[in-house]
Every structure is written in structure tokens, then in C-alpha cells.
């Protein structure tokens, strides 16, 4: 923990260089990413923001190795993931990356506990019981472990998803609109947990959101517009983010 904490702000966890991603062909081609270069420091909570169609989700998918890029490169730690085969990408996702999605985060057939441990099982790794207990207690799901997702509230489901993302101690957690489907109270719980994981455990978190309040939980906000980087805000507040967005929208 202390080792991680000392890295804060000094080491780069994820870096993208000259990323280009084009959807479609010919006249209908859309340059979703048009030469994006950005770096994310380890142990930081970064939010990517921008209007609809700005390319923020595409950027995250490319950073996480979920989607291929047309040119440019992405590094996670020392590995250039844009060169990896599907098999190696799968392995990378399994071992070094955690995900939290907007909805449909959990397998309906598995209990909360099984869902949390699914990634580790896929990787064939033994869960670290102390770490597992720490996370479960932090998200406050101790008494819900044996429940199926349909028996949990939306906020609880999302906290299970967060626990699953963290339990494998990934180098980086990507969160795609994690509060998009939640009411503001449940959303705040999830965001609190994500911020705490950064503060307490030195976790690196990259979150895509369109909600200025959610973004205000982050250490840094990266703004996007039309496939380009459009600026950034350090130590954002809801108001400063809103102001920046209004500027972008105009």
C-alpha cells in the first residue's frame, strides 16, 4: 500500500499516443478518435467527460483493450496493448484491468460472491482472503454475498461490480458511466467507494461520465469534444466542470 502510495502522480499507469479510431467507410466515416494523446497517472482518479458523440466511450474502450485502434498506441504499464493478439488481450483484461459498466454488470446465474470472484476464477488465481474481506466490508456487502443479482438493489449490484473490479488488484479500473442507472444516493455510494479505493489502496481509476457531480469526485477531469482532447481540470468541483462543459457545448 505504501509502495503504491509513493507512486502517486509520478508513475504513468495508462498512456495513449496519437489514437485514431474511424467507424464506417467513405462518406459515412466518422472519426471517433482523431489523434488523441493522453496519459493517466497511477493512483489517481480520472474522469473523462464530454458531450454525446465526443468519443469519450470510444477512448475508454481503446484504452482498456476492448476495441481495436486504427492507428496510434496504448500502453498499460510497460505493455503496448495495441499490438496484442486477442488471446493476450483477454489475458491482460483478466489479470491487469478491472471493469465497472453502466448496467448489466453481473451474471444473473451467479451469487454476489461468485460474481466478485469470477474474474479470479477465470484467471485460475486464488483469491486473497484478507483482501477479499477488506473489499467486501468496504462496500458493505457482507450480508448480501449469497444473494443473486435480481435480489439486490441497483446500487448494491453496482457495488458488487466494483468489488469484482478491485478484487484482482488490477493496475487500472475502467468505469463506464458507473452511476448512469442509479439514483443520486446509490450513485454517491458507488463514487465514494471508487474514490476511497484510490485514496486508501492507491488504485488507479479511469471513469467515463457525463454527470458533473460524478466527475467532481475525481482528482482530474479530461474533457473531450469531436474526437479531440479539449482540456482538463485538476481538482474539479461540480461547478467548474459544468462551466467547462458549457464552454465546450457552445
Amino acid at each position, binding site marked *: 500500500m505504501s509502495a503504491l502510495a509513493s507512486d502517486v502522480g509520478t508513475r504513468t499507469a495508462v498512456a495513449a499516443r496519437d489514437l485514431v479510431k474511424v467507424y464506417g467507410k467513405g462518406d459515412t466515416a466518422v472519426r471517433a478518435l482523431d489523434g488523441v494523446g493522453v496519459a493517466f497517472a497511477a493512483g489517481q482518479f480520472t474522469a473523462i467527460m464530454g458531450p454525446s458523440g465526443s468519443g469519450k466511450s470510444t477512448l475508454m*474502450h481503446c484504452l482498456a483493450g*476492448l*476495441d481495436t485502434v486504427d492507428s496510434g498506441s496504448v500502453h498499460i504499464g510497460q505493455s503496448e496493448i495495441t499490438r496484442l493478439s*486477442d*488471446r493476450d488481450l*483477454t*489475458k491482460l*483484461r*483478466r*489479470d491487469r484491468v478491472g*471493469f465497472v*459498466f453502466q*448496467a*448489466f*454488470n453481473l*451474471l*444473473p*446465474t*451467479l451469487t454476489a460472491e461468485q460474481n466478485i470472484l*469470477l*474474474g479470479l*476464477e*477465470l*484467471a*485460475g488465481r486464488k483469491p486473497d482472503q484478507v483482501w477479499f474481506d477488506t473489499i467486501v466490508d468496504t462496500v458493505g456487502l457482507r450480508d448480501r454475498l449469497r444473494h443473486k*443479482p*435480481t435480489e439486490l438493489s441497483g446500487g448494491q449490484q453496482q457495488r458488487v461490480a466494483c468489488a*469484482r473490479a478491485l478484487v484482482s488488484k488490477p493496475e487500472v479500473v475502467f468505469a463506464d458511466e458507473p452511476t448512469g*442507472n442509479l439514483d443520486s444516493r446509490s450513485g454517491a455510494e458507488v463514487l465514494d467507494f471508487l474514490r476511497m479505493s484510490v485514496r486508501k489502496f492507491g488504485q488507479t481509476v479511469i471513469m467515463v461520465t457525463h454527470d458533473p457531480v460524478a466527475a467532481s469526485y475525481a482528482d482530474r477531469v479530461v474533457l473531450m469534444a469531436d474526437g479531440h482532447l479539449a482540456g482538463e481540470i485538476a481538482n474539479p468541483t461540480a461547478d467548474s466542470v459544468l462551466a467547462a462543459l458549457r464552454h465546450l457545448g457552445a
Partner: protein
Amino acid sequence: MLKTTLAGLRARTARLVLSSIAIVLGVAFVSGTLILGSALDANLHNDFARQTRGVDVSVEPGRSSSGSADEDRGGISQTQLDQVRAVPGVAAADARWGAQVPLVGANGKAKSATVSALEGDQRLRMTDLQEGRMPAKADEIALDATTAQTAKLAVGQKVSVLDQADKPVPLTIVGTYTQGVSKSSLSGDAAVLLPSALAPLAKEHYVGQVVVAADQGVSQQQLADRISTAVGGKLSVKTGEQYTVDVLKQISRGSGGLTQFMLVFALIALVVAAMVIYNTFTILVAQRTRELALLRCIGADRGQVFRSVLLEALVMGLFASVLGLGAGVGLSAALQAGVGSVFGGSKGPVQLPLTVNTVLIAFGVGVVVTVLSAVLPALRATRVAPLAALRSLPDSQDEVRRTSVVRMAFVAILALLGGGVCFIGLRSGDSVGFIVTGLGTMVLLGAVIALGPVIVGPVNRVLGALPRLLFGVPAKLASANATRNPKRTAATTAALMIGVTIVTMITVAAASGKESVTSEIDKQFPADYLVTSAVREHPLPTSLADQLRAQPEVQTVTPTGSAEVKVNGKSLYLFGTPADSLGKSVQLKQSQGDVSRLGPDTLLLSDSQATRYGLKVGDRVRAGGATLTLAGTYSNEDQSSAIVSLETLQRIAPGTGYRMIMIKARDGVSPQAGQAAVEKATASSPIAEVASGAARKSDLAGRVDQMLMIMWALVGLAVVIALFGIANTLTLSVLERTRESALLRALGLTRGQLGFMLLIESVLIGLMGAVIGVLLGIGFAKLVVSALSTDKLQVGFVLPAGQLAVMLAVAVLAAAVAAVLPARRAARTSVVAGMAEA
């Protein structure tokens, strides 16, 4: 609303095509069977038509007032034929008669052939010349085309028939012909001789019919009236028209059996297809919950939603019926070609008569089954609340409900009903009982199907244990997936289960039957070899027994004979056996008097024969030239009805040959060597036919296996439909779980593992159906076999483990194959696209 439905149909074409394959196959089976039936009927009509063509008047021996069959024995006399010929207006009249005559084939062995007297007049012949010409001289013969083919005989070759003293009569084959269906043509080999050549060969010259052609200008009725007057009331005279009507009445009994037999299997296939369709629509409706809810939000009422689902089913049913009908035509053509080659007949060209009835039934079955199968899912669609459009549904879970009281009550009723019917069937203990028990088991099968959603969970836990242990996470997920929706899994499984149950039942019952019949043969075959006459009316020469005794390989030779005598005015067939064979090859269950000894004047009768002839133990009867004393009666009806010693038989009917010679080989003689010795000793007699218990058994086993293969093929179609059902369910599940699959991929499941997961799920579903099916089939077969078992024939229960294992293996393999396409599809979807899909 119509536009929406049609747009939906266009959008989901691929899914619907896959689902409709089940209906296509079912309709193809039904229409193929009906077309085959029509073709067979048409063949029969043609064949019968040949029998009646050109006949203006038919004269047959009439029933006299006393009604005794014996009095008809003389048939129509030559005088009566002459009288008919003399009637004015008769252009030609010919006697139709025939006799069983031994025809010696190329291998030197005789086979009984039905030889008919050739009608003198061309118009009255029921044969169509195929090659050469009809006999014109006494030493010429024409053969039925099939007979010539089987016996490897051709026009121009010499052939011989045996006269009554078994002396060969040389003949020249001058032609081959095809002939219409009649009593004679059904019995196998057939040939035509001039009446003058046939008369000395035939034991009795019985003319059962005279056919008459009329002169120009004379009506059938006129001529019939004139002939009736001329021959008096002794003969029955009918017009050609009436004769045709009478003949056609027999047809209804012709092809009906085969068609009905096949329609039963077609019905099974349709039931399975209906389950697949039901399942498909249930899944489609569940997946479209959002879409349907949106329609309701916009203002569609429940009726419109219901109708839109049914319209979809209707279009699918029509589409499938068209394809199915086309496939049915092909199937029928293939079957006719197959039937022709199996039964070795040049049955003529393949006919495909497509009647209006067949088309209507094909469409009716296809559309009605599809629409009916969609009714329940459509009703479920109407229950979708408009608000569902706004919710995100992770899984089509609305149909996941476990047991309900209604279901359990339904299961209980079916189980009680099936059990009751089986009980009645088992108690009645005859052939009807066997069918009743069979029906009972089908009701029980229904109970198990209804119970399905309740049992798939536990069964899956048991079956999934091993893969879970061996293959880790993908297997765990697959096992959980297989039962996440018990109703869906149960319906998919049930389709396969029906087929496998029936196949198992047939296989086990057939194996048990085969086993008990072979053991029955062992009992009935007291000897190693049997020599019998190939021609019923021609007994074996007595010299044959001496020739057999001369063989060093032969230990004992036991000849038996038979003769017909008149006892108290009724004819009685006496069976002659050596006096010392009682208690050995002839075992009698004594009922009255003494049946342990055969003296020179002893007669033994079965109980029923004693009653029939009104004889009691101690009574004396005159038979032939001898007086016999009834010494005892016996109760086993499987034995000959009247037994005397062989010497007595020779005394009563001198010169009678042997009916059968039983031979026991010396110890240490191999079956082949024994067979060769017996064949060598009988080579001189063309009518001697050698049989052995072993040969009879393998012959019978072969026939049972052939029948089993046909049944397997017929039920196989239902299994194929069920496998399409599995593939279909999996494909739809994969579509439904696109986001889930993407999530798993995002979490680190490789493409291979994702495919493997589906493979295991498919195999688990297949195994569930196959294992339950095999277990049920074995149980049902046990019931049916014990219903089949009577005092006379004890049917033991045999488990053909090898065949069942092969069946299970095939089911697993087929289920794995069924998973290939869905698995590829699931693996292909990109992670991002999968997550984005609503």
C-alpha cells in the same frame, strides 16, 4: 399493426427459418407418407384393374343352399365351361385356375411356384408381356418377370417343373410378363402354362372362375342374364362392372396398414416439432418484451399483440408447409426407390401422385400445428405490461417460475391415468393388452414431460457434476445456464426425450422379443437339422431317410409324415411320428387317457380336436383302411392335432412320403460339416430343403434387426427435429445473452472458453433428454414386454446395453454438433458491440 408484424418477420427471418425447419421436417414426413400411400393405392388399382380388364361377365362357383364349402370343391366343370361358351353373344370364355407346382431353379433346387393356366383369348389375359411371347405349345412356359430375375432365369433357357411323382418335366422359357395383383401373385413365384400342360401337373383341377368376353353389341347385363339361364342356378354370374367393384373393395385393406404405421411415426415427429415451435415462440416473445411493451405504450391493445404473434406463426407455418410438401415429394420418391430395392421387385417407375387431400392435409398440419404451438406464447405476450419498455431486462426471467399447484395436479392426474391404463393392459394379458399398455406408457411419458421444469434442476446438478469438476469455470457457467430457465430447458429436453424414449422402448422390446423367440426356436428345434419339402403338396421320398442314415456324421434320423383321412365325414390331418419319439421330439401334456405310448392302432388327439369330432378316450374310429382307438388326449395346442405312429400312417395311407425329417448329428461334428453332410445326402431330391436351428435363428434375428433399423429411421426423424430444437434454443439464448457474453469476454473469458461453455451447455441439455429418455424407455419396455408375455410365450427382459450406449453417445455427439453454430456466433461478437446492444 400488420406492417409492424411483417417488418418484424423480415428482421427476424434467420431465426424463423431455423425454427421452421422443425415444422418442415414434420410436414415432409406426413405428406411423404400420404404420397407414398396414394402411390401404393394407384399401383394396387392398376394391378387390380388388370385382373378385371376385358372381363364382361365373371362366372364363379355359387354358394349352394346347403352352404358347405366342401361342395364347391369341384369348382366349375368343363361341361359348364362348354355351356358358357355355347351361349350366344359370348365372344370368348376362359377358365382361370392355377396350381402349386415345384419349379426347379438354376441351382437345381425346387421352389413352389403358382402356375396359372393361360387364358386362351388375348382379351381375357391379366398378364402384360414384358419380353418374348406367351406359351403356344405344351413344353413352353412364361415366367413372372420378378420370378425370372430372382431365379436367374432368362428367355430361351431350359427350365423344369416337377410332376406329381417329382419327375422333372423339361420346358423352354419363351417369355416373361408382369401381372396384376391376385391371390396367386402375392404368394411369390409365378409362371404361366397352357391349360393342357398344367392339368397333368396339378393335384387337383379346381376352376374357381370363368371369365367371359362379350360380342360387339351385347351388353354385360344381357350376357350375364343369358349365361345365368344357361348354367342354371348353380353358379354365380356377375357383370364385369360388378366384378370390378367387388375386386376394388379388397384394395382398402391393401396399402392402409403401411400408411397408418408410418403416420404414427409422423405424428411423433409432429408432436416433437410442435414442442420446438412452442419453445421458439416462447423465447422470441420473452426477448421481445421491450418491443411488445413499447407497442402497448404507443396504444396497441392486447388483442393486437396477440394477433401479431399468431400472424407471425401463420406466415411461418405456411412457409414451412410449402417447403415441407416439397421435401415430402422427395421423401416419397426416395422411399419408393428404397422399398423397391429392399423387396427386390421391379415395382415399376416411382409415382408421385399429389392429391388435393395430401396438399390440404400438409398445409393444415403445418399451419395448425405452428399456430397452435404459438397460442400460449402469444397469450403470454399479451401480459407484458407497457411499463416493461422502460425497465432494462437483464434476462427473460418472467417465465422462470418453478412448481405450481396446477402443474403438480396435472402431473398427478396424468401419472394416475397412465398407471391405470398400464395396469389394465397388464391384467388383460393378450395382444390388446400389449397395445393398451403401450398407450399407458405414452400417457406416463406425458406426465414426465409435464414434470420437466421441476426435474431439470436436480438432473442437471447430477449430470453437471463431472464437467464442473473437470473443466472449471466454463463448465460451471454452462451448468448454471442450462437450468437458469427451467421451463425452456425442459421443453428443449422434452423434444429429445420423446424420441429417445420411443427409440429405447422399441430397441429394448425388440431385443427381448428376439431373445425369447430364439429360445423358443431352441425348444421347437429338437434336432440339429430339419429336412422339409419346399413344395407343400409334395412330400419327401422315404428313401431320403435311408440316405441320411448312411452319412457317418449323422447319429439319428427321425422322419415324420402326415396324411388327410376322413373321420366321421370330416377330414382330419394325421401326423405320423416314430413310436419312440414320444416324450423326446414330441412332448405331450396329458389331459385324458394315456399319451405316453403309440401302439399300432393308437390315435392321440388334442382336446379341441376330440371335442370337434365328438370322440372320447376308448372310442374306435375308422380311418382309411384301419381302425384306430383313441388312447388319450393332450392339452398342448402347439402340437399337431392328431398323432399316430409312423408305421400306422404308412398303413393307412400307403406311399405317403415324409413331411419332415429331423436329424441329430454325432457329437463333435461341426455345424458346417453336419450341414454339408445333410445337403449331400439330399442333393438328389430337388424338393428337399435343409434348415438348421442356427440358420433359422440368424434369419429371424436378421429380420428383427431390419425391422428395427426401419423403426430407428422413422423415429430418428423426431430425434433430428429435437436436435434442431436444441440448436435453435441455444442460438436464441446466445442472442439473448449477447451482453452477458460480452461481459464475460471483458472479464477475461477467452473466445475458446465461451464456445466451450456453450458446447457443454448443449451436451448437458442433450444428455438430460437422452438419459431420462433411455431410463424411461427401459422402464416402459419392461411394462410392454411383461404385457406381451403370455403363458404360451414367456418373453424375457433383455437389455441391449451396447445399442443403448451407442444411442447415448450419438445423442451427446449430436448435441455437441448442435452447439457449433451458436458457439461460433457467440464467439464472433465483439466485446464493445455486445456491451452496447440493448
